[in-house]
């Protein structure tokens, strides 16, 4: 966090000054480790085993916060008899279909739930009653629907639907209650197993376990912060789930000093998820309608309308969004222009799109502030895709590699790409930096903070808002008078922001007001509870409703901390409803009293019959703690007085996800797609539901190959910004980290003959890169199982342009994706050898030679049950020969 989020890290340092214990878990020793009380090094890609070990420690020692867990989570819920755990099926959950590589979650449900209930099935193509197109074959680009199955985001922010009241056993003794299932599931994640998988010494693991359990409960809370070190894995979603389970068991959710903070990869990535740049959700986590399933608005919202919890108001959120976009043209008679919305036909994620570019299915592309030629997994695949377009628009501050790859990219140097054969017409349009435009950033705490333009953008640079606004104006001018129904969505758009200045900059303030929403009289709304489904309200993003309350830009508030309460509600504005901690009903006990005086946050004021406290209560203001909803109640009416998780249909936090996840109701450790070891936990080596792309550009290293014996992981340095466009062009930053380097331990350096400040060539089945070598004590070999694992650290900021240039580690990363959110796995295996990499055509031959020696084809190796160590001896000896051969070169 100090390394990648130094400004946010000031608060960690302040917490430390107040006595907090800081534990840092990371394969490498970073600037965070330097000031942490304890640094725990582990094998990259083994985090679920580590966190699962903590879950097991809590459960097997009964250290869970029972008074919190029983009423506020689904620990007591009874799961159906059909469910089978990884314990029973050698690492698989019930419902797995090997042919499609996907799960049917029917058997994961609570007892007595009929899976054919439309609420859960509507959005889930793999569920009964929905056409299944999985016959296109496993892993291919055409089987999106199979992998769409159970997409968590498909159900919107409330998560998927379950019946409001599953059967519960509050003694937690029922063998099929979630608590007991969880206990059995994690029982094998012992400290010894953690050592075997992660390389964390038992004593060190126990020190962590004791620290966080001792620091949780009525009087104390523990917070987790994570970044892409957790998310960028083929089991990334389940990794976060494991942390969620742990935090819920310890009672650290919805309470001050608790929570799980996602430190985002860029400024305002939270904002670009809330008002998404993602293909599969609409603003406010409303799911994108599906072409085959959602013919009309009523059908679209039916899955949620009438459901229990606040997500039950989705008709109001969706209708207000349509009214915001299409204004007076959206009427009840035309379904509020629901037909104007684009429709999903499958997975249109980034990597699918790139492969579709290579396959000639995508003709044009906008790159806005993104440099995939350097910053995305399998850089060669990215560049091949960009080279096969008709046109490409690049908007960035500087000329980045994604705009110049056609003339100076790595493939041009190897002869695999010729400038005169690349047909892509590239339009580079300079963009304004954040200091050169007004707008808001939304940070990880869902807080909007406004920034005002400080200087005019240089030259022709314009803000993205200006670019899209004027592009829209021009397109609409061209279409004016058109009678083609296809053009109506554009012509009917509300596209009328006030313009400012000579450059006709549209007002960002007006956009925020539009996002906030307006009522029947045209004045700004104050809260999303005011939204209606009758077309009388407009709102561009329901969760942002209130950001412009009282006609004031609430995000621009900057009242100093010392002039207000410690919750600081008048600094910026946090969604929803300026609430700083979500689900804060859980900061009070079931009776509505604070768990302790020290941790008092929101509580029930019985005298006045209302919830009150330091923050905006995340609960129905007058709902008493002892309230029991009537049978058949829907929407917010169905929320009981002890149901803090008001967006969930059952009001409880889920330790076990009976539906909604593509790869299991509980997390399980699987090895990364490329791993030097067999999975010590299960016979199942990899996440069985992972999305594999067996393509020529994307070969995988064979599992446990001695040709690729080392683990590599990519990461950032404080001195540079992501793919380098904002830092490698600046002398003051470039001089601080002037060359691409790899970090290795002294032991690995000796094993491979690497010298400090010398060169090294790092090779995978995809590509080979070269880097200067830093031999450092901060990289440590790990004892994993019966062997020593070496890790190679690769900061990923470099590319071919700028003041400091170098090879791009993302050229080494394979594309194997998490099935829930389609994110890549940043961990892989590699070889490292001293010296510079081959030049020109010799480079692809070098990589091909490695592939041949590894025995791999261009296709990924399928799942291999891990074998006992003895059984592998023969294979390893064979691979060892390959290594020696490599050394002789």
């Amino acid at each position, binding site marked *: 966090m*100090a390394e990648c989020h*130094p*400004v946010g*890290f*000031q608060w960690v*340092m302040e917490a*430390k*000054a107040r006595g907090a214990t800081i534990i840092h878990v990371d394969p490498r*020793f970073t*600037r*965070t*480790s*330097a*000031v942490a009380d304890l*640094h725990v090094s582990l094998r990259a890609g083994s985090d679920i085993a580590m966190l699962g070990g903590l879950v097991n420690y809590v459960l097997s020692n009964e250290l869970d916060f029972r008074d919190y867990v029983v009423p506020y989570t689904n620990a007591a819920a009874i799961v159906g008899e059909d469910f089978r755990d990884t314990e029973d099926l050698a690492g698989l959950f019930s419902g797995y279909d090997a042919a499609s590589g996907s799960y049917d979650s029917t058997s994961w449900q609570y007892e007595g739930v009929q899976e054919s209930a439309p609420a859960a099935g509507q959005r889930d193509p793999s569920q009964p009653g929905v056409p299944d197109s999985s016959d296109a074959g496993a892993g291919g680009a055409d089987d999106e629907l199979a992998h769409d199955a159970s997409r968590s985001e498909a159900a919107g922010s409330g998560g998927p639907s379950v019946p409001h009241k599953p059967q519960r056993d509050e003694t937690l003794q029922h063998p099929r209650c979630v608590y007991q299932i969880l206990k059995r599931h994690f029982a094998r994640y012992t400290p010894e197993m953690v050592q075997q998988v992660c390389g964390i*010494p038992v*004593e*060190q693991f126990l020190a962590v376990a004791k620290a966080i359990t001792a620091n949780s409960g009525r009087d104390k809370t523990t917070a987790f912060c994570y970044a892409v070190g957790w998310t960028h894995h083929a089991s990334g979603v389940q990794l976060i789930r494991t942390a969620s389970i742990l935090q819920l068991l310890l009672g650290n959710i919805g309470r001050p000093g608790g929570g799980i903070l996602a430190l985002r990869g860029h400024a305002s990535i939270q904002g670009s998820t809330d008002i998404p740049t993602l293909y599969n959700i609409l603003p406010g986590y409303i799911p994108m309608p599906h072409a085959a399933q959602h013919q009309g608005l009523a059908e679209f919202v039916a899955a949620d309308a009438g459901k229990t919890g606040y997500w039950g108001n989705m008709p109001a959120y969706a209708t207000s969004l349509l009214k915001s976009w299409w204004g007076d043209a959206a009427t009840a008679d035309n379904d509020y222009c629901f037909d104007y919305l684009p429709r999903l036909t499958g997975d249109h994620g980034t990597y699918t799109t790139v492969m579709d570019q290579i396959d000639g299915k995508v003709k044009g592309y906008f790159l806005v502030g993104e440099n995939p030629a350097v910053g995305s997994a399998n850089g060669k695949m990215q560049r091949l895709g960009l080279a096969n377009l008709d046109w490409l628009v690049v908007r960035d501050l500087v000329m980045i590699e994604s705009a110049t790859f056609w003339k100076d990219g790595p493939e041009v140097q190897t002869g695999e790409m010729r400038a005169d054969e690349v047909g892509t017409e590239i339009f580079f349009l300079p963009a304004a930096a954040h200091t050169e435009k007004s707008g808001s950033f939304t940070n990880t705490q869902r807080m909007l903070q406004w920034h005002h333009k400080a200087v005019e953008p240089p030259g022709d640079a314009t803000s993205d808002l200006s670019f899209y606004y004027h592009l829209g104006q021009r397109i609409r001018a061209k279409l004016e008078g058109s009678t083609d129904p296809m053009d109506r969505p554009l012509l009917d758009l509300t596209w009328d922001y006030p313009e400012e200045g000579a450059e006709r900059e549209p007002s960002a303030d007006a956009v925020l007001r539009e996002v906030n929403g307006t009522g029947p009289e045209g004045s700004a709304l104050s809260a999303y509870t005011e939204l209606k489904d009758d077309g009388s309200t407009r709102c561009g993003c329901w969760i942002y409703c209130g950001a412009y309350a009282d006609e004031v830009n609430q995000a621009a508030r900057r009242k100093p901390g010392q002039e207000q309460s410690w919750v600081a509600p008048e600094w910026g504005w946090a969604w929803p409803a300026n609430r700083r901690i979500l689900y804060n009903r859980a900061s009070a006990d079931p009776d509505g009293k604070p768990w302790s005086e020290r941790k008092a946050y929101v509580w029930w004021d019985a005298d006045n019959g209302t919830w009150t406290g330091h923050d905006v209560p995340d609960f129905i203001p007058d709902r008493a703690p002892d309230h029991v909803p009537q049978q058949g109640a829907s929407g917010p009416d169905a929320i009981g007085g002890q149901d803090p998780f008001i967006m969930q249909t059952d009001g409880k936090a889920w330790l076990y996800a009976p539906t909604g996840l593509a790869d299991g109701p509980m997390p399980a450790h699987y090895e990364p797609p490329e791993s030097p070891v067999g999975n010590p936990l299960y016979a199942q080596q990899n996440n069985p539901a992972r999305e594999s792309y067996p393509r020529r550009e994307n070969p995988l290293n064979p599992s446990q190959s001695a040709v690729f014996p080392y683990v590599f992981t990519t990461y950032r*340095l*404080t*001195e540079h910004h992501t793919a380098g466009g904002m830092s490698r062009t600046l*002398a*003051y*930053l*470039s*001089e*601080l*980290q*002037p*060359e691409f*380097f790899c970090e290795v*331990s*002294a*032991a690995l*350096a*000796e094993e491979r003959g690497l*010298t*400090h*400040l010398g060169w090294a060539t790092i090779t995978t089945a995809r590509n080979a890169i070269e880097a*200067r070598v*830093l*031999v*450092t*004590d*901060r990289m*440590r*070999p790990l*004892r994993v199982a019966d062997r*020593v694992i070496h890790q190679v650290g690769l900061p990923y900021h470099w590319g071919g342009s700028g*003041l*400091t240039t170098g090879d791009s580690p993302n050229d080494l990363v394979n594309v194997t994706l998490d099935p829930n959110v389609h994110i890549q796995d940043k961990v892989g295996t590699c070889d490292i050898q001293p010296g510079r990499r081959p030049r020109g055509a010799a480079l692809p031959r070098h990589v091909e030679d490695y592939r041949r020696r590894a025995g791999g084809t261009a296709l990924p190796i399928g799942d291999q049950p891990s074998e006992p160590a003895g059984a592998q001896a023969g294979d390893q000896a064979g691979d060892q020969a390959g290594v020696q051969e490599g050394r002789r070169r």
Partner: protein
Amino acid sequence: MPKPVTKPVTKPESRKGGADERQAGMSRQQLSGPLHDVSTDAGYAAPPPRMGFFTDTSICIGCKACEVACKEWNGVPDDGLTLTGMSYDNTAALGADTWRHVAFVEQPTAPPAAAPATDLGMPGFGPPDPQGGLEADAGVRWLMSSDVCKHCTHAACLDVCPTGALFRTEFGTVVVQPDVCNGCGYCVPACPYGVIDQRKEDGRVFKCTLCYDRLSVGEEPACAKACPTDSIQFGELDELRERAERRVEDLHSRGVDVARLYGQDPEDGVGGDGAFFLLLDEPEVYGLPPDPVVTTRDLPDIWRHVGKAAIGLLGVGAATFLGRRR
């Protein structure tokens, strides 16, 4: 913040150690020893309080924002793009083009018993021990520290400057005036910390000004402004010294026995630094001299001895002639 104070054209008469003077007030300009009111000593009438830096390295996270902010504000050129291999430190040292420098001290931490008693913990940049790192108790420590001009109470650079390019500001800081500097370079060897440096292509010397221009309008220096963790604290030196003492006590009470202050002591060889530090090890570990002494400390003695020698020589000469006469 103090208001800007005009630099007096003529120096006032030497002050008497009087009733309204604080105890350290001295009757003449000194070259060494404790000196409370450095600005008045330099001739300012009613100067603002002495300002300085307290750099608490125990909370430095090595982000180098101070280095960048300094360069941005002061227009300092880049210092060359060279990978040094010294941990994450590619700036290497303070110099004419680096006025803030973050040191990264990367060392294996051995069990206490194994550490030789004489180990000064000097920063080592060679390859680590290939056998190290596998045992559970084998770790590494990574100390970070943002170094800067110390703005000494007794600044030898200023004392030796023949042109008056280096001067004491009303805030008690030491600043080079680039339009006066003639590039003689006398100040470079005079600095006991090796801070002040000549720009090769230019000849003149450059160093931290403690953002004299920002101070003059009531702003804090750029580095302190940019520091995310408040490792670099700017303020009145007296208050900073008190704050630092409290911080050390706090760290000691929490078992961080290694915490110590560096450069805060008016009794030290430079009369105390205007920019002082909280360190977590011996100064040598951070590349700082353990006992800096103002290089002009002995000038009076030297002149006295030279004078005596001259008088003696004169006497001998005179005696020779006188003797002859006899």
